[in-house]
């Protein structure tokens, strides 16, 4: 993981992002289903309905952040696992470091 060349594929990340965005958008629509009129009126114009997109550099940055995040998570979990004398990182190891990890990022 320390290999600087190994990165997340931006396309993959973008695809994931889009997936999440579309889901959230759907949820939002559900939640805002009360006023369908508005939706119809501004179907094409309202920014709300425009799909979120990511700038290329933002995407790149996201990939890097994710990379760092994953590395950190794995390393921390690994230390826990090592301390337990286990060679394999289990989910429990991750759970142990997760709260602080999330707060660190």
């Amino acid at each position, binding site marked *: 993981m320390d290999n600087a060349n190994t990165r997340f594929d*931006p*396309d993959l990340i973008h695809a994931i992002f889009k997936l999440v965005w579309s889901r959230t958008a759907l949820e939002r629509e559900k939640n805002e289903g009360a006023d369908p009129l508005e939706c119809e009126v501004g179907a094409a114009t309202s920014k709300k309905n425009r799909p979120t997109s990511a700038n290329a550099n933002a995407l790149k940055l996201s990939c890097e952040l994710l990379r760092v995040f994953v590395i950190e998570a794995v390393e921390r979990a690994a230390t826990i696992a090592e301390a337990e*004398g286990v060679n394999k990182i289990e989910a429990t190891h991750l759970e*142990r*470091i997760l*709260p602080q990890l999330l707060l660190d990022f």
Partner: protein
Amino acid sequence: MASTTPHLITVDDDDEFDWEAAFREIDVACQTTKPSISCSDNNKPRLSKQSTLDNFISPAGAVPPLENWDTLDRDKSNLVGDEGLCCIDVDAEAAKTWIYPVNVPLRKYQLSITKTALFSNTLVALPTGLGKTLIAAVVMYNYFRWFPEGKIVFAAPSRPLVMQQIEACHNIVGIPQEWTIDMTGQTSPTRRAGLWKAKRVFFVTPQVLEKDIQSGICLVKYLVCLVIDEAHRALGNYSYCTAVRELMVAPVQLRILALTATPGSKQQSIQNIIDNLHISTLEYRNESDHDVSPYVHNRNVELIEVAMGQDAIEINNVLLEVIRPFVIRLCAVGVLQNRDLQTLSPCDLLNSRDKFRQAPPLALPHMKYGEVEGYFGALITLYHIRKLLSSHGIRPAHEMLEEKMRQGPFARLMSKNEVLWKAKCLMQQSLSNGTPNPKLSKMLDILIDHFKANNPQNSRVIIFSNFRGSVRDIMDALAKIGESVKATQFIGQSSGKASKGQSQKVQQAVLEKFRAGGFNVIVATSIGEEGLDIMEVDLVICFDANISPLRMIQRMGRTGRKHDGRVVVLACEGSEMKGYMRKQANSKTVRKHMRNGGMNSFNFHSSPRMIPHIFKPEVQFVELSIEQFVPRGRKGKDDHPIQAPISTDKLTNVETEVLAKYFGTTGKITWRPSLIAFPPFQAFPTGVHKIPHSFRTEILIDMMQHLQGLSFSGNSKTFFVEGEVSTNEHLGVETVEQYDKSRMGNITFNNSNGLCNKPCVFRKDEASMDEHLAVETVEQHEESRKDSIIFGDSPKAQPIRELSYSEESPIRNTKTKEKHSMSSSQGNNPHVHSYLFGSDFVSVDTLGNVLILSVPLIPSKEVSHSKCASASSSMLLNCLKQDSCHSGTSQGQHKGQSMEEKAVANLRTSGQARCTMDETLLISKLHYSLGQQEKKLDGVEEIVQTPILKGSLSHEGDTAVETLVANKTPIFLAAESSDDIGDTDLSPRLTNLIKSGVVPESPINESGPSNGRPRNEFLVPDLVSPAKVLSEMLLTGKNEKVTLDVSTSGQDTLNSPISNGMHSPILRPDISAKARGSNPSSPIVEEVKTPLANLTNNSCSKDWHLSSGDKSASVKQERKFKRLRKYGDTGQRRNMKSMKENSIDPSGNLAETSSIIPIRNKHNRGKQKPVDNVRAFIEEEAEVSSEAEVSDDEEDDQNNNSYDDSFIDDRIDPTATSTQAEDSRSDMMAIYRRSLLSQSPVVRQPNFSADFSPCTLAPMTRITETGSSLSKTTYSLNQSSERNTVSIQINPEIISSEAIPLTSVSPRENERKLESRKRKLGIYQGGSVPAINLERQFQLEAASKESSLQHQAEKIETNGDVFYDDQFYEGLDLDAVEAQATMLLRHKSELFTQKQDPQSLDLFGSPTFDLGI
């Protein structure tokens, strides 16, 4: 060109040099230019000159570039022009070759054209789709190479084309994208100015080029190459022409490469282009040329003649009727020659009108001019409508007519023309009938047939129409024909009345979608005719035929690019058909002109060779590696595409299983990591890899610790929040609290209560120590302790409250304490208890003060007479308490008061000093101090009342007095330190401390460092103060111990406290490492820890050194006094020595964490061995607990250890001094057990945490520490046993003989306790990995120190007695292993002790003390 004119003037030997030596291009240029333009004439001589120059340069081997030669040799007057040339350097190495890419299959015509274009200004006339762009790209690339600073411009007439060409050029030759930029009108001029400077290859629109040249932001002098795409536009005043004119006026030599598929429909227009662009060579190929034909795809051009519809014919006839009278009138005037209404065209009319305007017929009166003009205008409009009618249908014609009828001269003239109205009605009728346009229906047929024959997915069709109106008609028609046709329009930007234009963005989107297959039919106006490179187009329909052959060729060029294409021209019978035929014939003649490079038909201009003649570039075929083009719109131009590694590795079965396990393929039950699964882990910082813990994480940790009640940090936090205690104090308090808590087992206590309880306990312990010193019974102590523990909650809470209230609290506390003591213990005990409580109160007060940290707190502490130390630290408070106790015991209230007064005075003095420092603070402090003093005095009185002094107590009282003195000094120091701290940065420090304290409290050593640096500064003062406090504390502890052991223990404690204090501050700033080092200050640990500490905080160590030095000095004095008084002869000397040593040690520890410290520690230990041992035990336990609790927080451990040490020392001292050992034994044991029990869980957790904590260093240090602690504990056990003996011996001296056994018992008990602790620890450790490490280390150490261990073991055995046996032996086992580490220290200490021994020979304890110490 301008630069060449002077040449002409100076040198006009044109014909002397022939072009033999000149290069072919130049020759051609010269020859061709001869006849025509003046410019060419000017150039000729120069060219010849150049060639001749070249002739005699090359033999001479002259290196200077041609341009320079020129200037120097001939044209000194024309420096300006030559400067422009000079500034472009030729890369001599690159100029040896020119590169032709072979990434795409080589085409001979491209190669030859490229070769020509490299060395002369060339107009490339290549049919569409034959790769003009490649030629341009290769030329650009080579100029890019040859002229490292030269700038290259590629001009294309529209933005889409610019974008298309920049990508095409990049894909052909791969000019690095960081050098290329596209600039259109959308780029702001200021930005363009920067780009002109920064970039080297520009893809621009001609308008931008023109403007930038005119405004001067284009660095004209650096231009070396200008590529003009769609050069047939370079007519008239088009931007191409003006730009080139500007460039020619400027003294610039540059290569011009013009590209077009359709140079012109007439010979003259081609000549104009050649003139405008200063072309030297025309490279013309057509589809039939032998070198081109293989690459030309078959293109079937079908001309379909469409009969006009019936309606249209009718309307046409009506229109002709409208037209006729006007034509007749014009003819009558003699302005119009042609009388054939059918064949007249708007063009003819325009020409006639122009003629009329230039030379109106003489016969015509002036009055008629306007009338004729009106007729012309009307006729032109009518013919236009007629043309529309024939070629596009009725609807456009009708719209045109309607528009014209609405306003303007035409409306005025024709509004009453009935025939026209009739025509209009016919149109409307026909439109309302919905009669289809025959062209439209024909076109639809063609389209349907086409899509039947071709896959609609892959086939692309472009329909060209000249008018937007007809585009709309076509779109309407296409909408009806079904699914297979997905059509869209592609029109220009301008918005007319009828239709809204498409923005360029929309245009781009349309093209992209068209390429991708979203549309398969585009209906385009002329905007789609040029340059669009869409490979898949296999059908082009020209909806109107009567257009210029240029445009027809361009239209046809849209297809047949990749494979065969088909062009359908829909021509309406009649005029349109005729016009089409005429224009086709026209274009054929033009082609003839262009044969053979057009040499016979056109006049060419000369052009510079650009590359000096000494360079004769050879063609080099290179396969260029071209990076993927990154469109600017989507991704930053400068950032390279991310090479997305395509992971070819497939998941192994195991991995797949894991995935299936956690991300079940069902998707319904996905494993979600729990954030609350391991709350205990969140109380301690996890090890980090590269990302340090954030502030929020620290908050989380603190909060978790707080919630779990385990953590010291939580207590400290609460303290901070409540009282704003100084970090050092907090640390001490925290550690104390932790210990107390562990001992108390009151984990459930609130933090505040726990904190209070802890300090109270500490103080109680101290008080117990004092009491012991005062020869109080061990039982009482134990009871008191128990009581305190039991009652602890309430009293502690009370003290806290009192603290918060500050004024009445002490009294109440004392009362409550007394009550408790009364209730719990006997009469004596109550006294002790009261003392303890008093001390506790004081400590509490001090704690409160400490919490406040501000000066006022200190004064308050001071007020509590001996407890004035509290201001500086709880240690001082303890000392004061001890003193007070001593005084109370020995001298009584008066002495205590006097002492207190002295202390107060001192405090006041210090306070005054502080006041000078900070008036406001001082005042407040004074007030506080006064109030507190009163309270304290009350408390003291109470204490005095209660205490029952023993004989020994008087001695102790003396010592206490001494200690008081000593305390005063420490107090001063502490006060000073506190003052300094408070004065300097109370609020910031407090905040910092709080923050840091909160964070560091929990064991985040790692996280500490990052935070520590910034905080270190703040900490430094704090640290100093804490160190002082600690030293004071130590001193007090020593004083309490009056006996050598006590002193030694005090020293040890001092060391430890100092170290702890140091640690605590350090820890807060991330001094954890140092803290660790200080913790090790107990010698064994020190070695291991110190290095780490050093590594972590050098600066801190320095600060600490300073502080330690001060502290040590103060401590020395105090110690001396105390020791002298207490021990008198032998004890004093030893004490002094030990004190000195101790003092040195702390400093040494501070300064030299690793090497020096251990040695000194050893010395100290040697003297203080018993104490050290005890402390070591305590420390070990504490460490274990702390370690267990805080994985990484060595600081806490250290603090705990120090506190433990202090406690232990106190206990030991009391035990040693006290005679109530027996009774107290059980109690003590119970207490210890409780504490152990309480600690044990904590320890377990800590151990786990340690295990988990990934920090290698930290675990190592911990292990080593634990090992050392274990060894220490063992030693301490031995020592304690020894001490017990010693203490017993001492006790007899000081106290009664009875006391001796008791004391001995008590130490034994302590030892037992220690042992039990050790055992527990050992068990825990054994269970945990670290324990193993520790054991190993211990073993190693043990091997080296076996001798010492043996000695100790012997002593222990001797001392062990029945009491100790079980625990002791168990402890010994562990200890034996562990003891080895301490052995070295002990040896040293033994040496010291040996020295001391003779002095204290009588008291067997002295050697034991030494050992213990």
